[in-house]
């Protein structure tokens, strides 16, 4: 796959950055370099046309609020890594796929169909009545990508574990 405006040095640069971030956070990029670089061309293409790197294997609407859950790394990555050994597009793989003790197959779509998706812009709203005492000194925020939790007035600008941006956090408690 080749896209107008996606250069090979850029693919290399993005690959190196994602590789370092993945390994630093205990994740792995797919070791099939040709396949992975192809995915990254799509990732970069999406970043160019939408302003954010939505999953190359999913149809983005172009509206960030509607596409938040599929901005790479997507909200479904960790569940799919656990169950299938790879995320939906297979940019990320599990330890056993990397070690070749497990074969990588197609990963079924976990994202709900469009009619069942929640309304946009619900990311920062607390889920129902809090179970905890009112006395909690700080709200707890959860990264929807990797599950990282922190107690502070606002979520961090970037998740320290998976590098997801602030709008991928939800109020947890």
């Amino acid at each position, binding site marked *: *796959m080749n*896209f107008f405006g996606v250069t090979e040095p850029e693919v290399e640069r993005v690959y190196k950055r994602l590789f370092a971030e993945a390994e630093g956070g205990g994740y792995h990029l797919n070791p099939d370099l040709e*396949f992975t670089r*192809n*995915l990254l*061309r*799509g*990732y970069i*293409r*999406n970043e160019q046309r939408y302003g954010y790197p939505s999953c*190359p*294997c*999913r*149809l*983005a609407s172009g509206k960030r609020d509607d596409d938040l859950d599929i901005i790479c790394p997507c909200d479904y990555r960790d569940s799919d890594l656990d169950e299938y050994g790879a995320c939906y*597009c*297979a940019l990320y793989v599990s330890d056993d796929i990397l070690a070749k003790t497990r074969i990588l197959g*197609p*990963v*079924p*779509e976990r*994202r709900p*169909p*469009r009619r069942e998706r929640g309304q946009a812009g619900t990311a920062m709203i607390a889920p129902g009545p809090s179970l905890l005492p009112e006395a909690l000194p700080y709200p707890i925020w959860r990264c929807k990508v990797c599950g990282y939790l922190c107690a502070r007035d606002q979520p961090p600008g970037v998740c320290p574990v998976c590098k997801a941006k602030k709008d991928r956090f939800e109020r947890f408690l």
Partner: protein
Amino acid sequence: MAIEYVTGKNKGRVVLYALSTCGWCNKTKELLREMGIEFSYIYVDLLDGQGREDVISAMEKWNPRGSFPTLVINDKHCIVGFHEDEIREALGK
């Protein structure tokens, strides 16, 4: 770009709903080419407005989840995802 046609062995009406950026869609397309099948493919991400909506609605009849690649064979059989064995079985020989 609306629909692209690839010439080859006629196995009926073979339509691939795909994304221009998707690695699995690409693998599916390459498999069909390698098998020498006549097919058409649509890059849904390159469509917009009503044209996109119409294509997605047509595809969702076969694959309500609306995921890619979706391969529809002869308006009878649908294969969702890059399932090489299933595709070979459905269109082989």
